Every structure is written in structure tokens, then in C-alpha cells.
């Protein structure tokens, strides 16, 4: 089962309006740097329950989805 985990995200806002997430802070306070964003698209998260802009991120050599739903960020956490 999965759950919806809202996270703090460090974002770089560029002058042309582009946004790039740089790092996220997990519930326990651990900071995960985002090495690369490989894809950005609109998508729903059936696992966590939500929909928004989906950033496919490489974090510590693993692929993770990071969602921007309105103005909050969440990831699909295992429970």
C-alpha cells in the first residue's frame, strides 16, 4: 500500500518561469537531493491519490515521482 506524503521542496525558479525541484525533505527530516528531472507531465497518482504536475526525478540512483498538486508537493510513500 502507498500513502500520500507531503514534503518540503527546495525549488529553483528561473526568470523564464521554469521551475526545477532541487531537493526534498522527507518526514523524518532527511534531505534528499534531486540529481536530475527526467520528465515533467500532467498525471494522476493512483497510488497516493491525487493529480497534478508530475516530475520524474532521479534521487540516489532511483526513479521517484514528485507531484505538484496546486501549490503543495507530495510523493508516493510506502506504508
Amino acid at each position, binding site marked *: *500500500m*502507498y500513502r500520500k506524503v507531503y514534503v518540503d521542496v527546495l525549488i529553483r525558479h528561473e526568470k523564464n518561469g521554469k521551475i526545477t525541484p532541487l531537493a526534498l525533505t522527507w518526514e523524518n527530516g532527511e534531505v534528499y537531493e534531486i540529481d536530475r528531472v527526467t520528465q515533467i507531465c*500532467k*498525471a*494522476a*497518482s*493512483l*497510488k497516493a491519490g*491525487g493529480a497534478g504536475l508530475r516530475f520524474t526525478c532521479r534521487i540516489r540512483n532511483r526513479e521517484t515521482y514528485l507531484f505538484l498538486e496546486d501549490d503543495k508537493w507530495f510523493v508516493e510513500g510506502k506504508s
Partner: protein
Amino acid sequence: MERIVLHVDCNKFYASVECLHRPEIRNLPVIVGGDESLRHGIVLTKNEIAARYSIKTGEAIWQARQKCPNLVVVPPNYPLYMRFSNLAREIYCDYTDLVEPYGLDECWLDVTGSGIFGSGREIAELIRRRVKKELGITVSIGVSYNKVFAKLGSDYKKPDAVTVIGKDNFKDLLWPLPVREMFFVGRATEKKLNSCGIRTIGDMANCSREYMKLILGKHGEMLHAFTNGYDNDPVKHMDDMRIIKSIGNSSTAPRDLKTENDVKVLMYVLAESVGRRMREQGFRCKTVGISLRDNELCSFVRQMKLPAYTASTGEIGAVAMTLFKENYNLKRQKPLRSLGLACSDFEHEAGAVQLDLFGDAQKRLKAERLDAAVDGLQARFGSESVRRGVLLTDRALSGFEPGGSFTPFKRSF
């Protein structure tokens, strides 16, 4: 040139959105229902699993529970549904600017000029897949050459499906359906048609136009045309939808209304809200209508024209009460469950006012200035700051904001 019209219907919209957001209830029978303690306890939508228990939209939640004891009842979350509705419309707008919403969960799209994206069926498939991926809900889409058939097409196969109804196959697909499947045929019309031996959509189409007119009047002619595919009503442009034609509110009372004063209290709450919204838009109205529903859920509407345009809460309330007294007798008829009030036939307040010999118009202007002053006070100090005397006679009935639109948000100066 033949038009290509799509009708997109989000399947079980409220329930689908709720199930998307709560994975834990996705495999259970779920309904979205109102608050039972406020007597708003009816089924608004159900998911596919609840539908298998033959739970119907509009029935009471306790009835639904009898059919399915482990039913999950979720309260409605309208801001969330609005968000999803807008997100879906954003997708539709990628293909055409002719998008006409019909409620939160349905839209007509005219894609005649959108050939760059493919044929009608191809665009429908694109939209179906995109909504599923991006929003996590399913839609069923009807593709046809007019709005009525497109709507029937979206009902034909659901969920998550595309049905194409063309000039070649509409007789095979639609004509065998019972009349009640037809757009604009409700309970009363169905009964009338059945009593004349007209049972299917095809029967309606094959009657002569004159015969249909004889049974149902103007409405019959329209149905005859629609069932034969002669509907040429255009899909409206996005921006044309903003024209406001009427402003209304309705509310189910926390308890049955048994006396005239009960009705008066609720009617003035509605009049306050409708009047204020009308003044916000800068409108005056010339027609006031009320809708009444008794505790056995029978409802009807009545309306009347005013001698002159008005935006005054007092006058709207008084007219509504006159209408009520002329058309309903609480002593002989059943107690009322819900009331509605709507104003229509607008003119803009910047227009000239027709004065009259006996000074009624001036009184009316004075009343409007008073209303404007009250609006200002309420906006600044909250809606509780100034109230009509009648609303204080029963706070249980008057203690709500219709539609919740008027937040007691206090502006600071």
C-alpha cells in the same frame, strides 16, 4: 459540411474524484452524500461498486444503507470537484474553443474545425486517454453530428468508452432505446408518451410531427426533430457562457416548514442572498420565481412579472411571499421541505429608470440605497451585524448562508 460534436461525460464524477483521493476506499461501495443531520442526506453519486447494489442517485442515504450495509458515505467536497472540472475543461480546450459546459461533469465540444488532431473518434480517444492519465478519472464520450445524439452516445456505453453515432447507424443504435433515455424526456413526458403507445425513441421519430405536437405541444415537435437528428443547435463558445440570465438560491430547511412564518423566514434569507448577489452584478430584475418542495418530495415552480425593475431585497421577498400565498396553503397542503427563489429578466442598474406619477419608483430607489448601505455594513462587519427582524424570529431556520458564498469575511479599513 457535417459537424463533429463530442459530448464528454465524466463517469460518476464526485465518487470517482473521491475514490481517486482515497485509495483505501476504492474497492468498497462508496457514495457521496449530503449531511443527514441537516436533512441533506441524499445520494449525490455512487461508484460502480455501489451501483451494483442498485443504489440510485437521489435516494435517501438510509435507503442506500439498507441495500448495502457496509456502504461508505463520503461528504461532498465541491472545491475539489470544481478543480477537477476545470482541469478537464483545460484538456478539452487543447482541441477546440467551442466548449459548452453542461453542469460540472459534462461538456459539449465542437471539433469540426479541429481536423489537425484527427477524426472525431480519434480526438475522442485522445481526450479519453488524457483524462484518464492526467486526472485519474474516466470519461465516456459520444461522437455525432449534433448535440442530442452526442449526448445519447456518451450514455450509450460507459465507463471509459467512445461511441460514434453517425447518420448511418443512429437508427440501429438509438431507436430501440426506451423514450426515457431521450434527452428532455422526464417522468411526466414518458407517461404521456407511453399512454399513446409510444415506447421507444424510434416510435417518437416515426410518428408524424403533427401527432407529436398534438400530444406534447411545442415540446413534441422538438422531440420529433431531435429523434430524427434534425438538431442544429450550435455548441456555444467558452466565453459566451458568462452571460448571467438568472440568479437564484434554494435551500432544504433543517426541519419541515409548517407555518407561514417559517416560510417567511427562509424566504427572506434567500431574498437577502439573491438580492445581494444581484446588486453585486449591478442588475435589477423584472421576474421573480419561487420553487416549493413538500416533505414527500413533490415540487413545483411559480413565477410572476413585476410592474417595474427592482433589486431591493424587501420587494423581492414580498413578491415571493405573495406568490407563495397565492399558490400554497400550508393548512391544507403538506409541510414544505425546501424552498427556492430566483430572479431573472435583468436590466443593468446604469440604465435609466422609468419614473411614475405616484412616486413608487422613488420609493424603490430609496429602498435600493438602503440595501446598498446594508450590503456595505455586512461586507465590513459580517452578515450577522445587520439583519432583518423577521430573521431573528427563528434562528434555527435563518442561521445559514445560502450556498455558503457569502463568507463572513470582515474587510478591514
